[in-house]
């Protein structure tokens, strides 16, 4: 990487009223992506050798986990306490809560287990908003086309149609749970148009949309009489029937006392979220501490097919400075409201509302070619020009983006006065477990919803579709799981699928030393060096 300017020098040279040249034409987006997007880094990809996706491309660090040994075998099950339930929801974020509420609304007994605390998730950090085609002149068809186009036409049209069709009803359901959204003076929901969209379609609650959603859903779940919640209870393995072909429960570890518990059920809904905390390709992440891809590992070992394992979203505007917020997000809403991206020379270099993968690739290009801004802790980035936005629309940042201002206030940084240093950050797993419109995977009894599921966003997700996806498909999975055939529960619970995976690993000559799921990043363990740029 060529060296650009230091943070101090760039800040001294920055002027919020400097004349800007027009943004250069983007002639060849494919070459830009192929040259600079992290998915195309040399050595980043490998091919899977075992499991339903054998032969498919997969990111290398993820492949290591998908082709790893389980933590437990049959001996560990002896003596474990057994609990029965109708529906087991794994994960306490937005998708898990929506699934639990939908299943409980239909009379199912629901047990929701979560690795950390209910609500500790990526949902709570979501800022920008949720998409729903509600404005006059906008349609579900347009929403569908935007989603498929931005995803490079790799998404499953049936899933996308289901999601966009759910949009308006999802917003109504959220309001019914007690969620607030920003309104215009006339009472309409306020909408924004973001990258890759043909109409204003993002509804939001300031830049706290995820926080508002998560605290409302958490309260809803905790107060629901039909839902029991177990915190600090990661799933260490799923359970299968004696042929290893049907999911009949899960084995839970306890982060508080280290014990193991068995849950028997007719339906398991995986809502475990993404994998940013694997720090793929050495990138920082916007994700919460539990985002370690556990659901992918569990589903794959059980025999579920996955998709787009070589495609991840690096959000263009992750914070570089201050250092304790490295990788944390600045919502795309700031660019949607009109903020520009500037390189170290104060020049615009990309249309800021291109899809996220293209904007990220352009930022990485600027940094690599010596037009980046370097911090003394080893970070590099470009400016998000918030002071210019404040000049053109005074008061806007305070009214619409309080989180942006609050998060850095206690370290003395005011984005209204100095621009924000940003660099792409590992944000979202575009693919995941293959599902149908009911959230059902290829394995009977196993459902998936939210970021752990794939097929909706293709190879690039646009803003606001994640929150719609988690609620829409969370509810779909909850409804389907509650209605699933009641075959008086599983007769026998086994780890036959684990034995099968172990045989496959041995036959393929792969080592049995690595164990998965990861559960928490290594750097959170005592004595380990913390992860830094």
């Amino acid at each position, binding site marked *: 990487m060529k060296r650009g300017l230091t943070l101090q020098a760039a800040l001294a040279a920055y002027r919020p009223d400097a004349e800007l040249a027009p943004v250069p034409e983007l002639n060849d987006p494919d070459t830009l992506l192929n040259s600079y997007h992290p998915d195309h880094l040399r050595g980043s990809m490998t091919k899977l050798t075992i499991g339903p996706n054998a032969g498919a491309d997969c990111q290398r660090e993820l492949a290591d986990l998908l082709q790893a040994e389980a933590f437990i075998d049959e001996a560990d099950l002896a003596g474990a306490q057994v609990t029965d339930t109708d529906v087991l929801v794994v994960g306490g974020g937005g998708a898990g809560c929506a699934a639990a509420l939908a299943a409980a609304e239909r009379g199912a007994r629901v047990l929701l287990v979560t690795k950390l605390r209910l609500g500790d998730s990526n949902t709570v950090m979501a800022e920008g908003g949720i998409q729903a085609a509600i404005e006059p002149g906008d349609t579900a068809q347009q929403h569908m086309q935007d989603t498929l186009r931005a995803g490079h036409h790799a998404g499953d049209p049936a899933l996308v149609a289901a999601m966009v069709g759910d949009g308006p009803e999802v917003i*109504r359901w959220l309001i019914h749970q*007690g969620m607030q959204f920003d309104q215009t003076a006339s009472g309409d929901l306020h909408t924004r148009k973001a990258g890759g969209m043909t109409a204003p379609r993002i509804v939001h609650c300031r830049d706290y949309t995820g*926080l508002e959603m998560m605290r409302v859903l958490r309260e809803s779940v905790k107060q*629901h009489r039909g839902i029991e919640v177990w915190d600090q209870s990661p799933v260490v393995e799923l359970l299968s029937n004696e042929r290893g072909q049907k999911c009949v429960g899960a084995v839970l570890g306890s982060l508080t006392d280290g014990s193991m518990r068995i849950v028997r059920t007719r339906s398991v809904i995986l809502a475990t979220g993404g994998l940013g905390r694997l720090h793929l390709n050495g990138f920082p992440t916007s994700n919460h*501490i539990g985002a370690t891809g556990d659901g992918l590992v569990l589903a794959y070992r059980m025999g579920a097919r996955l998709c787009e394992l070589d495609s991840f979203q690096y959000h263009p505007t992750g914070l570089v400075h201050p250092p*304790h917020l490295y990788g*944390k997000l600045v919502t795309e809403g700031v660019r949607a409201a009109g903020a520009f991206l500037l390189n170290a020379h104060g020049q615009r270099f990309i249309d800021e509302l291109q899809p996220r993968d293209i904007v990220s690739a352009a930022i990485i290009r600027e940094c690599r070619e010596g037009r980046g801004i370097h911090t003394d802790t080893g970070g590099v980035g470009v400016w998000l020009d918030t002071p210019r936005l404040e000049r053109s629309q005074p008061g806007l940042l305070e009214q619409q983006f309080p989180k942006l201002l609050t998060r850095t206030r206690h370290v003395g940084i005011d984005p209204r006065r100095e621009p924000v240093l940003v660099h792409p950050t590992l944000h979202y797993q575009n693919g995941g477990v293959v599902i149908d419109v009911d959230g059902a995977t290829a394995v009977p009894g196993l459902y998936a919803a939210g970021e752990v599921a794939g097929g909706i966003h293709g190879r690039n997700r646009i803003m606001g579709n994640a929150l719609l996806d988690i609620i829409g498909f969370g509810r779909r999975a909850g409804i389907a799981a509650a209605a699933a055939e009641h075959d008086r529960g599983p007769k026998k619970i086994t780890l036959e699928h684990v034995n099968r995976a172990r045989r496959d690993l041995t036959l393929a000559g792969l080592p049995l030393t690595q164990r998965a799921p990861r559960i928490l990043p290594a750097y959170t363990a005592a004595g380990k060096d913390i992860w830094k740029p």
Partner: protein
Amino acid sequence: MTETSRNIPAVELLINGIPVRAEPQMTIVEAAWAGGVPRITGVGCLEGVCGSCRILVRRGKEVNVALGCETFVEPGMEALFLPAPAADRHQYQLTDLSDGWDIQARFHEIFPEASRCRHCHGCVKSCPKGITVEDGVALAAAGHFREAGEAFLECVMCELCDSACPEQIAPAHVGLFSRRITAFFHLRPPNLIHKLEEIRKEQADKKEQP
């Protein structure tokens, strides 16, 4: 960390009673990880919005509470990670509240402590987000739920205010209740309702002409 920053003198402090040598600019959470404090699971988003990493902090004679992911190490500081909040005492489901006219009465049934505020400011001092907690509770107790809810916009549900309240008011939940019923009873956006009505008509037409 780069080599140069390793030469800066370490900050010495106590975390959960364990002596830790941390680098300046580290947060309490980072210092706990780097300093060998046994695994702490009360950590979530690392950006101050999930409310999990509740800590008790002592600086000299001053004791306060804070969030560990946005509190920085200081020489001689003592920090203690607090357990997750206790189970809620209040119980309600929005669907039980069908009538907006008796909502004040229902509120005081659900949160009987809310009208007993002693104005001790414990909740205000303990709030890591600078929320005017006490005023917010007073607004809710007087039935001004919209304004009360707005006061709690930035609430991350860490419930540190709850632990500071001698009357056990559960201010964070009072704020959340205020926000939720405001949406539940009053948020009726014309553009959304119009679109839902369009969809309903389309589906009705489809049913009539199979």
